[in-house]
Structure formats: C-alpha cells, structure tokens
C-alpha cells in the first residue's frame, strides 16, 4: 500500500517503488539507478532490464529541462471531470531522461511553448494526494 496517494487519482496501490511517494513528500522527484550497471530509469523501476539486477538506488532528477511537447485537455476521463482545462507535457532533460506530468496552473496557457526551459517540483493536493508538476525554469 501507499502508492494510492500518487497523482490526482491513482489506479494502483501496490508497487515495489512505493518509496517514490515518500520521496515526493520530502520534496524530491527521484528515479532509480542500477547499482550494478549504472542504468538510470524514470519513471523508477525496481528491476534493471539491462543487467537483471534488483539492487537499485534512488537519484534526484535534473532540475532543468526543455519542454518537448504538450497538450491541453478540455475534456477529462471518468474521475477527473472537475479538472479541465489542464495541460500535460513531456520534459526532456537530455541523457535519455524524460518526464511526463501536468503543467502548473500558474503558467498561463498562452505562455506554454515547445522548446521552453522548464523545471519540476512536487505538488500536494487538498485531498492528500501527492504528485509532481512542470514549472517555469
């Protein structure tokens, strides 16, 4: 249990990388790093597909990246009806690390551009859910 707290609404409660949620609560957005071969993963995974090791460490994601692409949802799936419009985007940090998340509400929609510099931060919802979001660099 524990992963049910992740995101606006979680669809799964049990995972071996549940520590990700605890780290979010500490203000950290972390991926996993294979102690054996050094492969980095985001989103985090508990098993290394490169060398089959399950001995993983946590590493902090880079603070700055480039907004690769985005979309603004005007309709939402079941369970998210109160949220639209909301913008979701992909951030490219280089070195093969990318991240998908919502864009913070304090960025005006007309200011969101492909190629802009962005950062990421953790986010707590009023109902206790915890997540991360994309912010201006």
């Amino acid at each position, binding site marked *: 249990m524990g992963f049910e707290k992740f995101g606006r*609404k979680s669809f799964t409660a049990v995972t071996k990388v549940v520590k990700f949620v605890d780290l979010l609560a500490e203000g950290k957005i972390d991926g996993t790093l294979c102690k054996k071969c050094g492969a980095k993963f985001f989103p985090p995974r508990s098993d290394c597909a490169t060398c089959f090791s399950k001995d993983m460490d946590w590493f902090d994601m880079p603070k700055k990246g480039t907004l690769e692409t985005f979309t603004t949802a005007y309709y939402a799936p079941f369970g998210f009806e109160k949220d639209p419009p909301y913008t*979701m985007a992909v951030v490219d940090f280089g070195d093969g690390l990318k991240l998908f998340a919502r864009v913070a509400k304090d960025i005006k929609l007309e200011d969101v551009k492909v190629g802009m510099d962005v950062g990421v931060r953790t986010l707590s919802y009023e109902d206790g859910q915890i997540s991360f979001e994309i912010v201006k660099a």
Partner: protein
Amino acid sequence: MEKDVAVIGVGQSSFVRGYEGSIRELAFEAFREAMQDAGITQKDVSASVFCSAPEYDKQRSPAGVLAEYLGLIPQPTFYIETVCSSSSSGVKVGYSMIKAGLHDVVVVCGFQKMSEITSAESQERMGRGADIQWEAPFGTMMPAYYALYAQAYMAKNGLTHDDMRDVRLKSASYGMVNERAVYRKGVKAEDFDPKNPDAKMAGPVAWPIRVGDACANADGSSCIILANKEKAKAFSKKPIWIMGIGAASEAVNMAARPDFSQGLSVGYKAAAEAYKMAGITAKDVKVAEVHDCFTIAELMAYEGLGFAPMGEGKQLIREKATYKEGRIPVNVDGGLLSKGHPIGATGGSQMRTIVLQLRGEAGPMQVPGDPGIGLVHNVGGVGLYGNVTIFGR
C-alpha cells in the same frame, strides 16, 4: 512473391452507434458475410481466432462463447488482444498457425461493442490502455496522447490545423459513399472554422486536437478467412495473398518515447519488416488503409510507411495525393475517422477494404488502375503496438 497464405473470405458488419444485439450476434454478421464470400461451411474451418479490446464486454473470455455461436466448435479457438490493432494481430497469429502447418483454414473475427458504457467511461478505459501506474494518474486519455504528437509536428515540421482538417475532409468524402460507415455526413472546411458559430468540428478536445480530428466510436465486427495454398486454390477464384507482415512494440510511457516530431516508431519498424518480407518498396503500394484514429495519426502514417519523407506527410494531403485518384490512395473507405473505429474490428475491416480493392469489387470506393498491391497499417494504443500487412494478387 510468397503465395503460402491467402485471404479467401472477407466480411464486415455495418459500423453503428448502439448496435441492437449482443456481441455474439454482432460477430455473426461479419462471419456470415465472410463465409458466404468464401463459399465454405464450418466443417471447412480448422481453427478460429477472436479479437477485441477487453473491458468493453461483460463477457469474460469471449472466444469460446463466440466460437459456439458461430458453429465453430469443437475446433480450437483463441483470443488475441492488442487494443486497437487486435484483429491485425489476430491475422498474424492465424497466418502463423497456417504457415506452421497446424491448421489449413482459420477464421479471424474482430468485434467490439463500445456502446455498453458511457463516453467518459470509454475514455477512462482508453486512458488505462496507457500506463496506469505513471500516466493515467495525471488524467490522460487517447486524444491527449495523440495531441502530444500533433503539437510537436506543428512546432517542428510546419504542420498546420488546416492540414489536419483536410485529412478529415478527405475521409468524410468517402464516408459518405461507404454504406457500412458510422459517419455518413459530409464535412466542410467551415465546420472547422472557429469564427463560425455553428462549427461542429472546431471545439477543442485535447488541444491541438479538435472534435473533427477524432475518429468515431462505433460498434462493429469484421471477419477475415485465411487458407493455405491448397485450400485457397480449391475454394477461391480470387485469392488475395498475404505478401508481408510486420509488427513492433514501443514503450508505453511517453517519458521513454523518442522525438515526438518523428512520429510513431512502431509504424516505421512494422513497415520495414513487412516491405522486406514482401520484397517491395513503398512505391509499389497502389492503395492503403492506415490507422487514422486522429487526423495527425494518418499524417504520421504517411511518413512511417515511406509514402512521404520524414516530417513531410503534410505535402501528400496538400497535393491531394492520397485521394482516390491520387498517387497513393489512402483510407478511401472513410477510414477510422468516418467509417468508425470499433476497436477490435478495425484491422479486419481495413483488410476487407484492401481485399475488395485488389479484387476490383470496392464499388463506389474502387481506386482506378486495377491496383495489384495493397497495404494495411493498424496501430494499437498510442503507438504501443504497430502492425503492417501487405496483400497482393
């Protein structure tokens, strides 16, 4: 070209909103047409494969139930799922069963009854076709995923909203003449004009994707009957041979995707494999069905299939090259956009269209010039699964 496995019968139900019957009755509609087309009976069939996206049906493990209703017991039956490309995957499995020598005639039947749940529930299920652990918690849905690709194409490849609109105008023009299509109405450019208060296609769904950029959900079924060389020659006057099959998969998570302005990687990989197996190039294809769940998806497919260079798919629609009379006609049956997209039935329906084109039996949708080679491109999820199948006479 290899002539080992042929299509000897094709069938498709009408694609409709709210089919008034159960899934077994829906499947029977396509099956009946395909069996009558092939001129065979159930005793000639040695196995069946059923294809759909689960979670739309109350029925668990539908293959056994459908096999019984279609009269295909006690032969073995299997269930295959790759969401929107389920029936292309089913045909690959059927092809493999025949190539392996285990079976001589295989029925592949795709079906989907989407209308039993609400549109919001449907979007939620489709969103869960993506990564439920890391992405669905942000409120993702299919249009939003494809919009990520559309946005990158607009920013980096000079794609415009008018280009996407023009894909829909083309599809609608053929949906009007396809009696099996769910969306039979015509679409005009002013339907996309935000200054027009009656513009029914202009509203944003997941920007930059608008209402008119999205395909029509539908209920429907398709059926493809495959046979080995001996049975094809015995049963069929016009067998259409499977020349090449390619399939690929890609990371489900957007964070693991390569450059969004370069389209769906599964399209390129599946196409390269299918072309190699068939011993042809993109130039040899005379008619194609591509997976246009959204207008951007058709434009990306032009590039993935090699009909246009990378980033230049827009030129084909600007030049009307993918119209019926053009250099490479694409989706002249209305495509997913107007014919409709009953998920599990879609690949088989695309194949039916190509088989009819190669036989010269496509009626008002027939492309000129007696096409001899046709291609089907069918994608599952947001480029999670890709399938390309090439057919020849």
